[in-house]
């Protein structure tokens, strides 16, 4: 972490604020009972924070906040196995979103969100496939593809609207 000692205090504070925000969103979302009886399908509202960070900060900052949020949420609510799923889904989605956002030059955030949601679910499905090593989990793929794209679109729209009220680059 010696690299980060050069990070300005204001930025550290902002990133900590974003971490708290995404953790709070995550906690509220976990408290809401799931709408569909299929595990793995939820809105993923905490992804809004990742998208905003990717768009207005940098991929490195988004990765830091994401990692902090996942570790903290696993510590507070989670189990060891769900940590693995969260890490896989979160970071596959982050990498894909960073690439897509660069391709789209930060336009049309909802498309980035949709790709991120899709990548998140595919990452989790891959882990589920590796952990259980049964082909049965692949029966989930259509559900997860659809839900990933739809929820990703939603979080993408949210992040897009939020972006209108944020300066293009609050901190670099």
């Amino acid at each position, binding site marked *: 972490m010696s690299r980060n000692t050069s990070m300005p205090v204001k930025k550290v504070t902002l990133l900590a604020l974003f971490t708290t925000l995404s953790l709070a969103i*995550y906690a509220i*979302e*976990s408290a809401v009972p799931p709408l569909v009886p299929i*595990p*793995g399908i*939820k809105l*993923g509202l*905490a*992804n809004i924070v990742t998208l905003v960070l990717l768009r207005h900060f940098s991929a490195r900052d988004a990765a830091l906040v994401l990692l902090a949020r996942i570790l903290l949420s696993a510590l507070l609510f*989670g*189990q060891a*196995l*769900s940590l693995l*799923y*969260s890490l896989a*889904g*979160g970071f596959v989605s982050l990498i894909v979103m960073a690439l*897509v956002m660069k*391709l*789209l*030059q930060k*336009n*049309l955030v909802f*498309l980035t969100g*949709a*790709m991120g949601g*899709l990548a*998140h679910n595919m990452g*989790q499905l891959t882990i*589920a496939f590796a*952990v*259980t090593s*049964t*082909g*049965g*989990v692949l*029966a*989930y*793929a*259509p*559900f997860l*593809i*659809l839900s990933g*794209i739809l929820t990703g679109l939603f979080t993408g729209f949210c992040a897009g609207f939020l972006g209108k009220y944020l300066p293009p680059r609050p901190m670099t």
Partner: protein
Amino acid sequence: MRKYPSWKKAATAITVFLLVLCLASLLALLLPPKRNVSYIADVFQNGNLIMSIPLNDTTESRTFTVTGENGCVNEIQIRSDSIGIISADCPDKLCVGQGFIRTSGLPITCLPNRLVIQLRPSEDSGANSEDPFAVPDAVSY
């Protein structure tokens, strides 16, 4: 043709990619409404297994008769996903009234002719069709 900025091309490509994936998964969800389990029909006479017929390799229905030792006759019809008795010479015709079965629930029995037809899942599909949704119960964000 107008020159689009490169991100618009990327946006079009991504949109098409997502739409194709959506359509493909919708098709995958809607097309196979029946469960992916194939059954084998076991026909018992006097408690002895006299024939086993896998149900999934017949596409059109076919009919055959089973004759018992004291001359009683049951006509059995096999369809692509079900099996049933369509006529019998027994007095009560209860077996005909049981209709066609397609799952390994209740067997069809013809008591006067001592005939039982029962479906069991075939071995190859039985292993993972036990619960196709066997996934860990902790998938979270």
